[in-house]
């Protein structure tokens, strides 16, 4: 931007919306790469083009030198233009056939020679062109270019998903279902192809690339103004760490959710800004404990963090006391055994034999629960089957490894199936939907069963068995322009805000989950809680309820009706009349 006036306007108009970023980052932008495919074509087509030009030159000059005769038999040579015209339609195999006079033998000989020359030239040029289109580096350049363009043109806020494996896929589909846009990178072309085949509502730009390279993340929109968060979900801990690191160094403060299966890597991630680190193995134990002690809270947690359209899952009925049998010798089984012991339950760990034989001890017949966690689906399933046969009442927990075996687990009759990808996906979805939702669900597990059961009743009455929509409303002049004037006059009861815009005597059908005020969260606010300007509400309800509440928030007449029952004239004439009558 050499023009000082342009620089001035740019600073004046554009700069405030952009984040300040260190100057050296411009190195990552690679602006010249924008036309990379064109340069690649030009460079590779040099030789064929020169061959074509030379062939044309030889043919044209030669043809114009060949002696011929005109209609009266006088000597006549084709002019340069006529020869060029003739060679153009002949060499390109159009064969128009228009010539001023019949050719002499010399001219015919030269034309014969030229035709063969031209055919070779064209075959060479077209062959090179087709080879170029098939070329891997060229296709990569084109794909990268398209991806960069698609990311740059994304009109809505989007999340950057690094790693589109099982977890990434679950998260991606769920994000798409709740109407969030995302950009995906994965090192495996098959997964990116799978994304292209996935029936997503919105187009998700995807690229085959290594997320560990900062330039790749930048290409995927890390510096884009509408990039609102990064999800590091690859199955490689080091790669996830690299993503966390790059994000914090390149765009400090951008929310990051990273998955890891190692506590050490998790600690290293925590050194870069404030990433949310999800360790599925760590979380299994937490899941199991919640499922054992607060089955309804667990049921709600699974339900509220699943993609739209999911039905209320069955509630588990775990035994409260008794000994547990953990089968397996994986980090997961060790974690589960430790968590159960911390709960004061007697735990017996059974390692599978060297020949992978399943040898359940006699304690099984009196055990309260069995955890099959050997890191191997066939083995886990055989443990489930044996346990069921020998003790039909035992509570069976199974770790599910490969997605393809899902139907087998469903048929096996395990009471609780834990899948690492799903554990991560549920938590990611909860955290993406609202920063306070996950904490709310954790606290719900501690609040005791009656509270969770009451909430379940309320949600089922308000929203049915389908998972409710969760959304956040900020009671500020920006978030609720119609309500803000009323709130600024004094606090309003929460139940009054949540009345139906059609009939204010009945509630609109939204369940307030969390009230956020001055940074502290109040869970399940009661109806007579007073809301103030600046409060933030996390609500659950049907999509129609969200639209109805939207009118309360944004339309002054609706807001007045909902809060006080008074009908405010909405037209200019009506307002003028009501002013004079007052």
């Amino acid at each position, binding site marked *: 931007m050499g023009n000082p006036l342009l620089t001035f306007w740019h600073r004046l108009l554009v700069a405030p919306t952009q984040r300040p970023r260190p100057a050296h980052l411009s190195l990552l932008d690679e602006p010249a790469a924008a036309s990379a495919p064109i340069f690649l074509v030009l*460079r590779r087509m*040099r030789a064929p*083009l020169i061959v074509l*030009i*030379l062939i044309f030159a030889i043919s*044209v*000059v030669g043809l114009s030198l060949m002696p011929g005769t005109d209609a009266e038999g006088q000597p006549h040579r084709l*002019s*340069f*233009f006529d020869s060029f015209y003739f060679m153009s339609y002949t060499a390109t195999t159009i064969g128009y056939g228009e010539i001023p006079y019949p050719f002499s033998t010399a001219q015919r000989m030269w034309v014969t020679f030229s035709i063969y020359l031209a055919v070779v030239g064209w075959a060479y040029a077209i062959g090179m062109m087709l080879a170029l289109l098939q070329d891997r580096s060229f296709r990569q350049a084109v794909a990268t270019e398209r991806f960069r363009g698609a990311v740059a043109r994304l009109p809505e806020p989007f999340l950057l998903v690094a790693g589109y494996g099982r977890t990434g896929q679950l998260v991606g589909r769920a994000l798409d279902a709740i109407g969030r846009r995302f950009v995906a990178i994965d090192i495996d072309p098959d997964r990116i192809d799978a994304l292209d085949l996935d029936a997503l509502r919105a187009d998700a730009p995807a690229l085959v690339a290594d997320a560990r390279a900062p330039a790749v993340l930048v290409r995927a929109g890390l510096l884009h103004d509408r990039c609102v968060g990064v999800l590091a979900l690859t199955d490689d801990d080091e790669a996830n760490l690299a993503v966390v690191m790059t994000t914090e160094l390149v765009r400090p403060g951008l929310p990051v959710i990273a998955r890891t299966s190692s506590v050490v890597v998790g600690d290293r991630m925590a050194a870069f800004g404030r990433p949310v680190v999800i360790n599925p193995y760590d979380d299994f134990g937490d899941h199991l404990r919640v499922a054992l002690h607060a089955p309804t809270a667990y049921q709600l947690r699974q339900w509220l963090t699943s993609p739209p359209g999911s039905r209320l899952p069955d509630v588990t009925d775990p035994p409260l006391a008794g000994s547990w049998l953990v089968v397996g010798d994986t980090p997961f089984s060790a974690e589960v055994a430790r968590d159960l012991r911390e709960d004061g339950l007697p735990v017996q760990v059974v390692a599978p034999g060297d020949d992978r034989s399943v040898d359940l001890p006699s304690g099984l017949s009196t055990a309260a629960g069995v955890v099959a966690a050997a890191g191997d689906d066939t083995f886990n399933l055989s443990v489930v089957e044996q346990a069921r046969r020998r003790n039909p009442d035992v509570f069976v927990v199974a770790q599910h490894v490969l997605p393809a075996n899902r139907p087998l687990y469903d048929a096996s009759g395990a009471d609780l199936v834990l899948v690492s990808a799903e554990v991560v996906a549920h938590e990611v979805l909860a955290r993406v939907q609202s920063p306070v939702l996950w904490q709310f669900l954790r606290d719900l597990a501690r609040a005791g069963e009656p509270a969770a059961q009451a909430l379940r009743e309320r949600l089922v009455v308000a929203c049915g068995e389908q998972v409710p929509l969760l959304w956040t409303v900020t009671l500020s002049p920006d978030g609720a322009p119609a309500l803000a004037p009323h709130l600024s006059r004094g606090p309003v009861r929460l139940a009054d805000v949540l009345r139906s815009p059609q009939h204010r005597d009945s509630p609109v059908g939204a369940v307030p989950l969390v009230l956020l005020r001055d940074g502290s969260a109040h869970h399940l606010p009661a109806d007579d809680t007073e809301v103030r300007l600046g409060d933030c509400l996390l609500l659950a309800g049907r999509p129609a309820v969200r639209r109805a509440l939207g009118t309360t928030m944004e339309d002054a007449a609706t807001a007045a009706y909902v809060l006080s029952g008074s009908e405010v004239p909405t037209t200019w004439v009506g307002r003028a009349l009501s002013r004079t009558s007052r």
Partner: protein
Amino acid sequence: MNLEKVIFGFFVLLAATLNFGFVIGDISDPELHNPYELVAALVVSLVATVLKFGDRTQLGAVHLATSLVADLQLVAAATVWAYAASTSDGAVSGGTMASIVSLAAGALLANLVSVVLLVVETVSYQRR
């Protein structure tokens, strides 16, 4: 010695010399301007253009631009000649010849810039 540089320099210089050879002489005298020389200048100029494809440096971009200008001028000159020759049965009037040669002279200027760039590139090239 780099063969690619030799070929590149050869074509750039040859385009300029052929162009100069065609332009030199009384501007309106058709006897002094050989059509074959114009065709040779045009073909060599086209080859030089293609040789400059795909260079992403600033100097490369200016090189390509000068070549494109030269091509455009020479093609215009050739077109004028072909059209004039077809309407007046082969012979070209002094006025038409003048416009053909002046178009080619414009191309010569562009080709000279190309040569200057080539020299600048060579002089600033440092590898000992």
